[in-house]
């Protein structure tokens, strides 16, 4: 059975006892779960359709052409139209729509956009007639996946380079240090904007570019940590037992420096979200029509008269970033080495 080390257990208990961070963590977990299952709550596809005695669940899976339900077209059914059609024809067929029946890319030009918040669109629509709530939720999914992807890449590069330069020292350290210093001087946003102006990267490409320009911080921390840990007895012990470099670095040193990695993680995620939002805001982020907070923010600033655009996205962004920061604070507190480590 999976068992936690006592120190980890103590740390988690400590994190649990820090209420602000813990509730923020719960809130963010719920948000994440919600965004993963967003299709069930916010979608242009129906949850359930009963037509001529046959039931179907269109939420996931291949699109169902309108012909199947007796609408005269071969492309994906417009379920809101289908619902109206069934209601008008008085048939026994039934459509159950999700709570918010608007997909993130669906345009509603029935009211000239941007439309004010109403029963139809709870948070109104953006300048292209798309439901803002829907775009917020799906945009959160995009932002958080981007941030996680970017943080994963950043850490892979940063931790590896940091550990190597800290462990080996000498010329490897010299070179990585200089590389890091040069890299740090490059203005991140500008470089990314220049690259994306010539090469229009996709989602993963963008995360990769961002990661390439943000591994330096974690690398220098990891270098210092490895440097310190390297001279501890357990490393000497492992070496005398015949352990190789890889084993020592990744099995012995790394777990002992993990608290640093973990406690900086939330801040990195928040940084990732902000990076994507700023890039999208400037028009160099994910390609449209991918839902994005930065794009909403940009629209909102362009249309201050349509307060609901900027209002919703600014509120959502503030709440999410604050809760991530709370989690970060909690983790830092819980993993504080002063509390758990003993130094010889």
């Amino acid at each position, binding site marked *: 059975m999976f068992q936690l080390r006592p120190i980890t257990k103590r740390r988690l208990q400590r994190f649990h006892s820090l209420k602000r961070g813990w509730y923020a963590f719960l809130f963010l977990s719920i948000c994440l779960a919600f965004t993963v299952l967003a299709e069930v709550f916010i979608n242009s596809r129906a949850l359930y359709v009963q037509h001529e005695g046959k039931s179907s669940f269109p939420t996931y899976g291949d699109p169902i052409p309108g012909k199947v339900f007796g609408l005269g077209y071969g492309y994906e059914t417009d379920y809101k139209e289908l619902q109206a059609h069934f209601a008008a024809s008085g048939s026994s067929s039934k459509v159950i729509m999700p709570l918010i029946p608007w997909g993130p890319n669906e345009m509603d030009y029935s009211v000239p956009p941007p439309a004010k918040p109403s029963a139809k669109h709870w948070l109104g629509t953006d300048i292209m007639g798309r439901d803002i709530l829907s775009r917020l939720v799906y945009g959160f999914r995009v932002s958080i996946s981007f941030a996680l992807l970017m943080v994963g890449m950043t850490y892979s590069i940063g931790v590896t380079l940091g550990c190597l330069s800290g462990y080996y020292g000498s010329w490897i350290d010299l070179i990585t240090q200089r590389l890091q210093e040069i890299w740090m001087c490059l203005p991140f946003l500008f470089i990314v904007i220049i690259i994306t102006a*010539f090469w229009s990267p996709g989602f993963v490409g963008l995360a990769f570019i961002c990661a390439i320009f943000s591994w330096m911080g974690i690398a220098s921390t990891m270098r210092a940590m490895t440097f310190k840990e390297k001279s501890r007895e357990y490393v000497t012990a492992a070496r005398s037992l015949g352990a190789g470099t890889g084993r020592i670095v990744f099995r012995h040193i790394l777990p002992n420096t993990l608290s640093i990695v973990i406690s900086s993680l939330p801040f990195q995620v928040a940084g990732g979200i902000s990076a994507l939002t700023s890039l999208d805001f400037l*028009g160099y982020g994910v390609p449209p029509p991918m839902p994005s907070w930065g794009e909403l923010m940009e629209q909102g600033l362009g249309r201050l008269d349509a307060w609901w655009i900027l209002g919703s996205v600014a509120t959502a962004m503030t709440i999410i970033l604050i809760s991530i920061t709370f989690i970060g604070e909690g983790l830092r507190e819980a993993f504080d080495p002063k509390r758990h480590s003993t130094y010889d």
Partner: protein
Amino acid sequence: MINTLLSCLLAAAPAPAAPTDLFPVQEVPQVKPQAYADETGLPSGLKWESGPQQLQPWGSTEAKKGGKLVSFLPTYPKSFRHFGPASNDSFRSYLDNLNLAQLSSDPNHPEITLPSLCQQWAIGPDRKTVYFRIDPEARWSDGNPVLASDFTYAQELVHDPDLEHPDLLAGWDSNISDIKSHGRLSFSVTLSSEKPADELLYYSGTWPVDREFWMKFQREALKKDGKNPNENFGALIKDWHKYFDDAGIAEPVTGPYMIDSAKCEKMRKVVFTKTPNWWAEKKPWNLGRYNVETIEYKVIEDLEVAFRFFQGTELDCCFLTMPEIWREKAGESEGFLNGWFYRVMAFNDVQQPMIGMYLNTRSAPLDDLQVRRALWHATDVEGMCKTVLRGEYARMPHILMGYRQYDNKELKGLPFNIDSAVALLEEAGWNQMDIHGVRMKNGKRLSIEINYSQKTHVPRILYIRQQALKAGIELVLKKYEATTSFNKTRRRQGQIFWIGWQGNYFPDFRDGYHSDGAYQYESNNTSNYEDPRIDKLIEAMDLEKDSAAKTRQCHEIQKIIQDQALVIPLYYVPYIRSGAWNWVKLPQVVSTKTNGDEIFEAFGISGGLFWIDEEEKKKTLSAREAKQKLGEPKTIIDPTWKMAE
């Protein structure tokens, strides 16, 4: 709805009263033949023409001289040269407009040819050569007289191996076969083929280069490098353009404004000032025009940002053709409602820009005609015009709108019809569907990239994308910075190019559709298309002397372009709209019949109609400061040049 609203507005408005600020009809100055006494080598029996004897100026009698107008342009120019490497960007049209053409035409009566840089012209008996007599008063902005040798020098430069501008050479050679000097102020332009008279005048339009200036500049450049200043005399020196760009100067011009390179700020603004003692100031066609002393263009890439600058009075005028800017941003803004700035709309009757989705026929899956046709059927331009553009733009049935007889009005384009699109795609083997409803064939998705540069076009492209998805076609949006996007288009690096080409007065298909351009690294053959039938027709059109036969050939080419689905035409706009602060004044007829660019156009034959009223400026600014209403919101709609329906 908006359409009806607009037509109601127009119908309700009383017929426009005759403008009271027009200049009286002017006598066109007489030509003094003694200036051309040294002419040699002219064929006998030339009939010199010098345009109309009388002319109605289109400027206003109320115009005041002086002041400064601040407007914007999307990118900072790569160079201030109008030839040589990196000179063919969007700024080129500004540079071209700084110089007068040999001849021009009355912008309100385009069939009337007017003198401009040249005073007289004659068509040679070979029907290929046009003879020109330069106005003896014509001067470059550096004071040098404009001479026939300036025109022959341009020819030498274009053919100079160090010019490094292959496009220019190709374009030149396909049109002009020779320029000869016949005296100090007389020269002839021989075209490579015979043409009808009106086209002869049009195509013999070339440009002079200030020979004195370039000679001196190159000598100094060589001297600075410690080389013999007379080395390479006459021809271009190697890397001449680098010397020029490094010197941070601008070429001398013959027109009313010149670039003030000392005041320009890289990536920030381009400044033009009135040419000192401009030689053509008193010509009847320039009366009441080019009133402003300084014109400053701030570099603002985005139209919405530009509008914000405008609202902050950092720009004096702003382009408002786009519906959302015209209606909401301007129409509901504080400045407009308080009567501090006004909106102005002028109809025009002119060749429409060829705005379309240009399909790269050498990029799979667009190499398949059926896919191209299916894409056309799946492109809902009408829906886009109705929803996103609020019914203010109209669907363009084919690419050659407003080209008089050349416009093949029988072509209506492929209608939006998902069923037809689906049928075509299934026939072409795109039978499977993926989970997003995108069609697949042999494991490849029917996903096509669309290359665009303007953020404001995103809602339009997204609307089309959503509709095309119904046929199982996925459009992937790729945004590039304006210059990159244009370069990518010219190199055909991409699949669909969302772009508008500005055409000439006569339709010209050689540039965009002849197979010559299909294999070049950079060319305007955006669809990368090669078809011997089109080539043959284009070549025939070039040689054709008969206007009717030419029209037939032109119609036929348009038909092939439609049948092959090379371009999906998008929309056209038969008017231009702008906004300006109260101190920017316009004549009562605010624009000309053929002005298709901007009401506050500063250069060119339609340009420079506005003037600045300093008193009004003080008044408006203080009212704005005090948040005081100046009057009812003012929208000028000028239907003078509305196209007959």
